[in-house]
């Protein structure tokens, strides 16, 4: 089981590192690509959690479709690298007093978050139950659940996708709107 632990830490480090870089660096195309790397790490974590279908669906839907859409938009709009605009410098919250207060609050939040994580991890750990993979992970079981227990949400998401398609086409259309 040590191999599992190594893989978990590897994927976790990749996911967290890539997400930090997504919000931390300035080039939007790199942000999109780093987010794809983060999604791939999460897909690896799903496989470790005995959910191969979720992992593959994550790659197909998120990394293969949604991120392609983001990439297209970034490339077509030729999004420039971000830099502080001049209204940033004259913003009332940019004064030193406000900055210090903000830094204090951020420090408190960081302390609280690390306390929570540490406290949770030193308690009685809930070990991941050793289920036989076939019972939880089989695609047939997922399909059966979707089409029986969750049949209404399934149909509702199909209506949602239709609405999103129509909305996206209309919103992004050039021209004066509805004629």
């Amino acid at each position: 089981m040590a191999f599992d632990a190594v893989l978990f830490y590897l994927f976790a480090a990749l996911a967290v590192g890539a997400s930090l870089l997504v919000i931390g660096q300035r080039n939007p195309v790199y942000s999109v690509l780093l987010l794809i790397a983060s999604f791939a790490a999460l897909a690896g974590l799903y496989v470790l959690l005995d959910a191969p279908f979720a992992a593959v669906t994550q790659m197909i839907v998120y990394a293969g479709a949604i991120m392609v859409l983001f990439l297209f938009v970034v490339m077509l709009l030729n999004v420039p690298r971000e830099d502080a605009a001049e209204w940033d410098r004259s913003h009332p919250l940019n004064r030193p007093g406000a900055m210090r207060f903000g830094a204090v609050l951020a420090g408190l939040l960081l302390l609280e978050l690390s306390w929570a994580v540490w406290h949770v991890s030193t308690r009685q750990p809930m070990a991941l139950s050793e289920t036989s993979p076939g019972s939880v992970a089989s695609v047939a079981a997922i399909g059966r659940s979707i089409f029986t227990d969750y049949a209404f949400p399934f149909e509702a998401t199909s209506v949602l996708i239709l609405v999103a398609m129509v909305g996206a086409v209309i919103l992004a259309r050039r021209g004066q709107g509805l004629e």
Partner: protein
Amino acid sequence: MPAIDPVFIVQIALIVVVFHALLLSAAGMVWAERKVAARLQQRFGPTLVGPAGLLQPFADVLKLFFKEELRPKAADKILFHIAPIISAMTAFLAFCVVPFGPPSTFFGLLDKPVPLYVADVPVAVLVIFAVASMGVYGIVLAGWSSNSKYSLLGGLRSSAQMISYELSYGMALAAVLVLANSLSLQETVNAQAGYWHLFGVPVAPRWFVFVQPIGFFVFMTAGIAETNRAPFDFPEAEQELVAGYHTEYSSMSFALFFLAEYVNMVTVSAVATNLYLGGWHLQPLPEWLGIVWWFLKLSTLLFFYLWLRWTLPRYRYDQLMQFGWKFLLPLSVVNLLVTAAGVLYFGL
């Protein structure tokens, strides 16, 4: 030799063999393309280098190897180099889950049969689909990072074409899944064993292509569009007229893109062989000949790919997109519905 599992050795050997076989197959496809093109155009093709020009691809690789590696000054340094790597990587990755022979014991060397593919994944079909979605990124990034108008347009067009045809590809796959009742390619091939009998005489093998002719047509068409081959290669042919996503690439990066294209072709044909043409099953012959038979079917599909390229004129871009969205996608959805109805009511 205390505890080295022979199965482990076989698995490592499989990885090595599959990788080199794919490289060799790409080289073979380069040769075959030039020969087939030549014969279709009533000329000879490469004949000087090696017997019947068989060493021509290696000469090409040597030439490309010695060319200078250029990078436009305004191109994005990291992405320009990563893009062909992504293309080639996804092409090889997709073949990892494709089985190419029956589980074999290598003439009794092992005690239990080992299935002949690199990775044993229960959701193999979806993995192929996922990796195909990843292949779009190589092209988009190549087009964008070259920092040139024509590359960008070619890259965006090509990737829009690929994601449009992925839908029909997926629907055709879904119809086969309904028939085979499993997501694993190994199971799908095994579901095609045996023959249909008419009055006690075996008349046709139980291949899915006979049950799903439309599905096969949709799958192959979408596969050809996915790999950007003729007659759907407008984004690529733009480079004969203007430029495409790999204009600014030279020497080994260019070679990587073409390697990716040929390996993608091989993967699509291999998946089609397993899903529709029955894989390696041929009842009267011994099991271990299955690989040869599989390879013959694969070669037929690849020849078909080449034949199409040099026979048909290419689609214009808007015709191509219309064909994908307005004809192929509804056809594949109807195919799925009819297949599902058939399985429910007639128990196919």
